Every structure is written in C-alpha cells, then in structure tokens.
C-alpha cells in the first residue's frame, strides 16, 4: 500500500448515471483517438457519451464461469430493467468483491459499458465491473434520485453538442419514453 506518484494530472471520466432501460437501448460505441489505449465510449440515446457508469440495484443472479479462468456474470435489477455486469481476472478487485456478495443483495457497481453484437444482429450491452460493493436500501433510493436527475438533465438539455446531434441521427426515441421511465422509477420509491 505505497503511494502511487501522480506524474500527470488527468481528468477522470465521470461515471454516468443511467437507468437499465436506457443502457439496454444503447447500440453505438466509438473510440476517442487512434491509439491502442484510447478510451472507448458508448453513445447514450439521451445524447451523451459514456465511458463509465455508476449503478445501484439488486443483484439477482450470480453466475461463475465454467472452466479454468474465473469469470463472474451478474444481473442487477433497477426499477426499469436489468444491467448485465461481468468481472474477469483483469478486474481482481471486482472479482473478489462479487465472490463475497450473495444474491439477492443491494449492490453498487462502478464499471465500463461495452456494446456487443450477437450473431442474430441484436445489440447487447454489458458492464465490465471495476468495483462492486454491497450497500443498503438507502443508497438504492439515493441512486434513483441521482439517475432521475441526470437523465432529466440529459433529455432537457438544449445544447447541440456533436454527441447530441449524433445520437439524434442514430436513435429515434421520443424524450417521452425516457420521461415515463424516470417517472415509473421514481414512483417505485416507497416513502
């Protein structure tokens, strides 16, 4: 546990707050820059790029891969649907954390979204976990408010950024779809 010297100050990509229903509809991914290590992004249907997500929900399924390499796939439910999250030997921290969490549990996940195309042409989005933590119900409720706020900000933004213009070309969701999703999510919170 020694200090890691920071030679270069860098801007860490913020972890976007996205409901499962929106992340599931995401199909476009791209790379910023041409280098091998350049960051990859997915383009959210609400018009922002996303290289990292922070999500909170209920871990409902935990699957350990068969074979030599340890690999976990977990399913996490939020009010709008499911997130598919995985962790392999390149994510030792997340792997270790998932191993200790039983389903069902409330969990918070920080990870990187990826878009895959299945042989039948469908797009699948999964999140490669960086960290997973068991949390209590109050964090879930706070996250729903947080995700609702950020999603509303994205659909209400009138700034014509290149990402927003691009997302309008690729996706054709009415903002009302997302409003309904947000409202439904908010009403799942019992006061």
């Amino acid at each position, binding site marked *: 546990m020694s200090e890691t010297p920071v030679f270069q100050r860098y801007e860490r990509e913020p972890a976007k707050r996205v409901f499962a229903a929106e992340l599931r509809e995401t199909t476009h991914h791209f790379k910023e820059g041409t280098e091998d290590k350049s960051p990859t992004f997915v383009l959210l249907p609400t018009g922002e790029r996303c290289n990292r997500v922070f999500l909170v929900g209920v871990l409902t399924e935990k699957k350990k891969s068969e074979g030599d390499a340890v690999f976990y796939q977990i399913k996490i439910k939020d009010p709008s649907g499911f997130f598919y999250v995985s962790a392999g030997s390149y994510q030792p921290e997340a792997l270790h954390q998932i191993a200790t969490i039983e389903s069902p549990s409330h969990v918070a996940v920080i990870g990187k979204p990826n878009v895959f195309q299945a042989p039948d042409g469908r797009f699948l989005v999964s999140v490669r976990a960086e960290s997973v933590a068991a949390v209590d119900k109050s964090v879930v409720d706070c996250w729903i*408010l947080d995700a609702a706020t950020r999603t509303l900000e994205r659909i209400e933004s009138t700034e014509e950024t290149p990402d927003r213009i691009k997302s309008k070309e690729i996706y054709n969701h009415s903002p009302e779809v997302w409003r309904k999703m947000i409202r439904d999510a908010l009403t799942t919170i019992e006061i």
Partner: protein
Amino acid sequence: MELKQITQRISEKFAAAGHQIDPAKIEEKLSRFVVEFGIPEDEAERSIISEYARQFGVESVIGTVTHKVDDSAVNLIADAQSGDWVTLEGVVTVLFESRSPAVAQTGILADRSGTMRFTIWAKAHAPVLELGGWYRFESAVVDEYNGQLSFKVHSGTTVSPLAKEEIPPLTITPIIDLPRGVVSLEGKVVSLTERTTGPMHLSGVIADGTGAIRFTVRQGDPTSGIEEGGWYRFDYAIADVYRGAMNLQLNAGTFVEPLTEDRSLRPAIISVNEIKPGVVCLRVKVVQEYESSSERMFQSGVLGDESGTVRFVTWKDGGDERLIPGTVYTIYYASADEFNGRPSLTINGATCLADEAGNIEVKASGDEVTGALVHISPGSGLIKRCPVEGCGRVLTRQNYCQIHEIQPNYQYDLRIKGWIDNGRQTWDTIISREGVEKLLGLTLAGAQEMAENNPLGLETVYYHLCEQVLGRYLTCQGRIIENRLLTSNCSFLTFDPTRHADLINRVEVTNNE
C-alpha cells in the same frame, strides 16, 4: 495613391537610414509591380522596402509592413495589432535602462485606451524622450514578442513632442469606472506607504465615493507632496490591470492638485463573498490566527462574516496592528489579491477599527461536494507517517521515507484517498483522519487495534473502509485545490423526500400523456 508619393516615401525612409536610392529606380520598380503585374500598391511598397532593406542589411531598422494604416489619423493603443503601422499619441510613463547599444531608449507609452511598451532604435535618430512627456509617433511599427505587443521607433518614424494645447483633455472618472490608459480622477489618499526597496517609491490607496484603487509612484518621479488624508485631483495618471485588479500609476506626467474643499467619504462595505482583487472595505470577525510561516509575516489568519471567510496577512514592513482573534473589526481599504485561485487580504495600509461589542455569525468556509465515492485508492486506511518534524510523508511497508529513510518510530494516521463523482465531474479526494473518524465512528486507536488483531494487518483497515464507504453517496466539506478535494468533514447522504417530490413534479409537468 500616386506612385510618385510612394516612391518618395520609400526613398525618404531609406535616406533617413543613411541610404540614398535613386527615386527613378524605385518608381520604375514600383510601376513594374503595379502596372505590369497588377500587384496592389501597398503590397508592392512592402516588397520593395523589404528588398532594399535586405540589400542594405537594415531589416531590423526598416522592418516589414504587413498592413498599412492610414497615417493621418491617430491610432489608439488598444486597437493596435502586430504588424500595424501606427500613429500614436501618448505620454511616456516609464523609461527603462537600455540593455543594448542598438536601442536608444525603451519604456512604456500610455494613451487614453491603454499602455504599450516601446523601443527606439539607436539608428532611428529620434529625439530623446523625457519621462512624463507627451509625444506623437508617426509610422511606428507594432510587433509582438512573447505574446506582448510593443512598438518600434525606426528611422522612418517621426517623433514630435506635443504642445500643451495638443494634449488631449480628460474628464474626471469615478474610481469604479476607471478604464485602462491615461485617466483623470479625484479622490482621497486614504493610505500611503513609503517603500525603501524596489522600484516603487510610494504606494497607497486613493478612494472616492464609488470605490478605491491602489496606486504606486515610481522612484524618481517628481510627484511628491501628497499626504495621507488629503483630497487631490490627479490628471494624466495611468490606470492598468495588474494581477487581476485595476491599479493606478502616478508618474512624471501626472499633474496632482490638492483640493481645498472638505469632502466626506462614505466607504462601501462589502461582504466577504464579494471580494475581488482590488481594494475592499469589510466588517469581519477574526476567526483564526495562524502561526507565522515566514520571517516577513507579522500576522496571518482567517477573517469571516455571514457570507464566508477569507485569509489575511499583515507583512512586517510597517505593519504593527495585531488583530485580536474573536474580535469584530471594520477594515477600511485592505488590498485584496488572488492567491491559488482564492482571495487573500493584505492588511498593511488598511485602517482597522475594532468593535468590541459587536459579533458576527461567521459562515463555515470551504467547498462542498456531494457524490458517490467510486474508487478507494491504495494508501487509504491506516498509514504510517514519517515522524521527522515537518515531513509526515507516508512510509512504505518497510517503514521507509523517501527523504529520511528507515523510520521505525513512525506515527499512525487514518485517511481515505479516492475519487468522488457526481455524474458530471470527479474530484480526487483525501478524507482526513477527523473526517474518517466522524463518518465511521472508527477512531485512529480503533483502527490500530483492528490492524494488530488481524493477520492481514494494515490491509484489514483498508478492506474495512472499502466495505463501509465504497459506492456510497457522501457529502464532503473541505477545500478544493486544483481539482483535489481535501475533505475534513463528511457524512453519508440520506434520502431526501423533498427532492423526490420535486423530481416527480419536474417529470410530470411537461408530460403530455
């Protein structure tokens, strides 16, 4: 323009530099450019000048023109751009010592729009400029060096002193509205300090009903006889921006006239969160006094009012008024600067009146960030610090300090290093021992015990913190310094029913289902 005129101008320019060129030759060349090849006249003039300049080896003197400005009108310093040929009228506010025999004089010229550095080449044979004198420069060339504009006086530039009646008249400007450049104002000298070192001879503050401004008088300037507490009219002073604030320079060209009528001055008191670089008046409580960190410092600490807090310092040169912690003061005409992106007050020269009976509820200072702790970095948890005084570096597992090597008598500390993220922005944060203790109810002693009773040792504490804090929403209070948040106090965010209701309303309102 007639080719003959251009010819004459070119030939005069080189004649002034000591090179005679047959005008017929110039005109023939010019006519080839313009008539035969259809080159625009100014372009042709430039080509010919630079050709001859190269031929005579006088490029630096003649310069090249990229853009010709009508030379009959006077240009403003503020409008000048690199490459312009300009006519300027202004006052010489500073003369620097020349560092090169090629330079006759160098200094700063000011007009009503701003100030600009100038260089007079020795070969220009220009008249010697006097400090505080007003001059007209015809056909000077503006260029840029290190992003700063300056103008050059070369042999083709005509320099002539302005007669008194040619000096542009000025109107009195309230201090708050002072623009850059040559200005006139009336005000009271509310503070005056004599300097024994540095190029500034006097410095102080001039105030009127609208505000206050710092002023300086350079060594050797004859502007003398001004006294603290007196009202004066200042004509042809120079206002310029220095470290984010407008400053006033009184120089040889400034006329200072005492005002005999007695005027009252009501300074405008502002709140701490309104402080901007410049001169300010405040009503504040002394929140804290720091131990002096420098030989030159007389006192430093923190002042505050209902709107926030600000650091202050009093330097030893002439500062002898110690502010008493816990006491409320009205401080007139303190100097505000920006230091590390935060305002900082200098009390020297200010007037501080204690209000023994007064009290102020000071607003807690600092920054607040609410977000999720998305990463906990190595170096979090129970750490060992170097015990050498003033060091405190984190030791490696082998108790090794980068500077002081092996330190077996280390001191334990507790902290969380990580990233706090609100979905739009991330902050590299360090939560201090106090912050961790309050957040988790885990004391430093408790953490030590935890480490001692567990085979994993120090790492136990690290895993404990990850389990308790990672992925949680925190509200952190502290200070942001260059995207790093130093958290001294933090708490877990709890569900806010009001925010929930607001969001439901917000999402419903525009829903047309």
